[in-house]
């Protein structure tokens, strides 16, 4: 390293332990104008390292330098003063406040304690335009936005600050392809102006495209730091896991009778007439841009939102529109929702209580009493079946990793058993190996004669998982691909179609 160009940030012998080491002797550096990818399985220490860099956590031992000067942020404020900003994977927005207020929450423009609303709105417009959200009214409350747009708002907030080191933690988990492209343009522009970017992601294809170097963490130690070109994906995965990822040879799935029939389902404005069916033994993928209506469609099928028109039929039951999830569940549907924290989990409650929630009725004795022992046994069996990693079934589910939280939710429906399983972004924010495990669970369900419908914003995921893929565009189905017909480009092209009539 030339002494005249010190790294933007350098850590020396960083250690952090919560009873056991989370980071051990970590010597990490990121150069000025470098995009540095940080990868590793959940729990490898990526987030802890990021949190130390931005002052949220203090290391037990070791030191840091920023632009060659000692750097020891005691609070997030110290880090921000130095120009270090982070965009969290967990969305950190305040739902009831407007987009503009959220963007500048930590330094709202004010004079004598009064908000300068005009200035705030202008600054917000500029920041939003930068991430391609020029059309978004800064006064919109964040609660009214979808997850993908929220993620962009959060990124816009970080980009709006004077930034010397930007840390992005799984920034693309909820973004559509064009949104990702725009983000990458931005990262390139930042890099060109000398800003350093630490890019934490599970998506190897994105890292290959955007990063200069990659650092692999495993069990709190740096396994390797290499130029991206010198680190093939297979080797990176091996480094993260410490062994070969098992090539899973699944038994072929045989499609059976139709289990879910949806006819012309509508819910204004997002769902504008969807007709599709899913067979026993089949995994049907729903692709499409953010806002194409996938989530709204699944919620309308499940009765979480009331559909305006159309019919849903499960097996041979009479076709109808479900007016509540309770009706849908009674008919044999199950749904793992998009936002597992808001709509799925009771975060502060034990794993066991979360898992048995949908099947409590089967543990109800005639007296109304809960058959606690039977419940516990069944929860234990299901936890084994989904290969749940937790210290105890009494552990609050908030302490589990994202992958294990998702397994808890899937387990909830396995305990109840359904004819048709709807999954909305089931592997968002989940590491590679948990993702594989979740895919395996879906394949298992299909092989046992259930129908699975999976919405995902990652075409790669759907292409490797599904038997058919329906591409949504503007609330309608643009195309349905059979396995073998699809390519990434074709799916993308269909997603940009206007199924109502001709391309725009």
């Amino acid at each position, binding site marked *: 390293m030339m002494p005249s160009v010190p790294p933007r940030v350098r850590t020396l012998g960083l250690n952090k332990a*919560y*009873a*056991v080491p989370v980071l051990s002797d970590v010597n990490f550096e990121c150069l000025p104008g470098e995009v540095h990818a940080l990868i590793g*399985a*959940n*729990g*490898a*220490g990526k987030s802890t390292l990021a949190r130390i860099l931005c002052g949220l956590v203090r290391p037990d031992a070791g030191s840091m330098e920023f632009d060659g000067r000692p750097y020891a942020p005691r609070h997030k404020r110290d880090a921000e003063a130095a120009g270090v900003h982070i965009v969290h994977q967990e969305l950190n927005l305040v739902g009831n406040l407007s987009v503009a207020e959220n963007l500048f929450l930590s330094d709202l423009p004010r004079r004598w304690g009064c908000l300068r609303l005009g200035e705030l709105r202008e600054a917000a417009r500029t920041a939003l335009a930068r991430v391609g959200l020029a059309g978004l009214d800064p006064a919109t409350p964040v609660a009214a936005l979808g997850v993908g747009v929220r993620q962009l708002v959060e990124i816009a907030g970080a980009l709006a600050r004077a930034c010397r080191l930007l840390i992005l933690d799984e920034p693309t988990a909820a973004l559509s392809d064009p949104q990702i492209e725009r983000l990458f343009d931005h990262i390139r522009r930042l890099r060109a102006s000398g800003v350093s970017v630490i890019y934490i992601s599970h998506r190897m294809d994105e890292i290959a495209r955007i990063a200069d170097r990659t650092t692999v963490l*495993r*069990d*709190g130690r740096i396994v390797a730091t290499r130029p991206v070109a010198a680190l093939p994906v297979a080797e990176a995965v091996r480094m993260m*896991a*410490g062994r070969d990822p098992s090539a899973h040879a699944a038994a072929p799935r045989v499609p059976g009778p139709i289990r879910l029939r949806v006819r012309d389902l509508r819910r204004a404005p997002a769902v504008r007439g969807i007709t599709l069916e899913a067979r026993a033994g089949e995994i049907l993928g729903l692709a499409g841009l953010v806002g194409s209506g996938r989530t709204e469609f699944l919620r309308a099928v*499940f009765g*979480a939102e009331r559909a305006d028109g159309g019919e849903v039929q499960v097996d041979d039951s009479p076709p109808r529109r479900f007016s*509540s*999830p*309770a009706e849908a*569940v*009674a008919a044999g549907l*199950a*749904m793992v*929702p998009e936002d597992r924290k*808001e*709509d*799925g*989990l*009771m*975060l*502060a*409650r*034990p794993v066991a*209580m979360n898992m048995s*929630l*949908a099947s*409590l*009725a089967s*543990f*109800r004795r005639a007296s*109304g*009493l*809960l058959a606690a022992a039977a419940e516990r046994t069944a929860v234990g069996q299901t936890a084994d079946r989904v290969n749940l*990693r937790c*210290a*105890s*079934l*009494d*552990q*609050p589910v908030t*302490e589990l*990793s994202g*992958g*294990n939280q998702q397994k808890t939710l899937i387990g*909830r429906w396995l305990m*109840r058993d359904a004819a048709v399983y709807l999954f909305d972004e089931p592997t968002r924010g989940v*590491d590679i*190996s*948990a993702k*594989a*495990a979740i895919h395996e669970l879906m394949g298992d369900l299909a092989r046992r004669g259930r129908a699975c419908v999976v919405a995902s914003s990652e075409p790669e995921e759907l292409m490797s998982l599904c038997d058919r893929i329906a591409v949504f565009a503007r609330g309608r189905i643009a195309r349905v691909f059979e396995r073998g017909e699809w390519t990434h480009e074709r799916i993308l092209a269909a997603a940009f179609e206007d199924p109502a009539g001709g391309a725009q």
Partner: protein
Amino acid sequence: MRSGTNGQPRRRAAECAGLLAVLAALVALFAALSDRFLAPETFLTIANQIPDLVVIAVGMTLVLVSGGIDLSVGSVMALGASLLGVAMTDHGWPAGAAALVAASVGLGCGLVNGVISVGAGIPSFIVTLGMLEIARGAAYLATRSQTQYIGPAIEPIGAPLPVLHLSPAVLAALALVAGGQFILSRTVLGRHLVAIGSNESAVRLSGIDPRPPKIAAFAISGLLSGLAGVFQSSRLSAADPNGGVGLELAAIAAVVIGGTSLMGGRGSVVNSFIGVLIIAVLQTGLAHVGATEPAKRVITGAAIVAAVLADAARHRWAAADLWRRLRRAVPATAMPADRL
């Protein structure tokens, strides 16, 4: 590794033990400050004074656990007592039938609270605030704003039994505490209430209609408030339309001292009962050491805040402790979870 551990029940037991320790410390403190305090009569007097607050705290716990709040309990109690008084004095009804009227009216008020707030999706704070005024007004109307002197016909419910020295009301309240705890921790209804208070959206999307359990919680709270009116009338030998003003706050204070979360999802009926005992011992003890009424209020208020602060600190500690135990229980190599 994950079987056999019962951290949750153990933690609950620890909470209960902590509250009992606070109660014992208060008793010891007042015993040291006043030589008349540590006598059987003191505790029997306390016991025979609290059944109304105890049963109201039981209902309040269920409502708070489900994420709601019931501000109408004091007024509904007064309405129940008033109708009981009118039935017995003006119409000569027997005590049993009049008590049934009080309980039914309470149940009715609770159902109205529940159906309106749950059915129309209006915060229960507002709906029960309205009911607080309505029930109080109705109590005044029914009694023409006069206290109804009932006399000995109602007294047996609140009078200490021979040998036991506790009144039937106290015994009933204890049974209701046990019943309430049973509902909360051992029945499907109780589990649904906890789940709704934790994340109602998750409950709905799990195919459970959250409305019936929520309405049930309000109905139980109303029923128990009406019953509290019976207990209070029997203690006073009269029906007082002014009774129970501010009782909702006393009940919420007791429940929160017992560790129930105002945000829903966490609570214990037994601990609420101990919370009532703590407040009652504090007030009686302060009277024993000659504290004035204003001083009692200042000290009681401070005690409520202190209790909630202690609870918050205990939870932070418990979370940290759990994390440490977890880290120790799982071998370091297995810890970065999620690898198969």
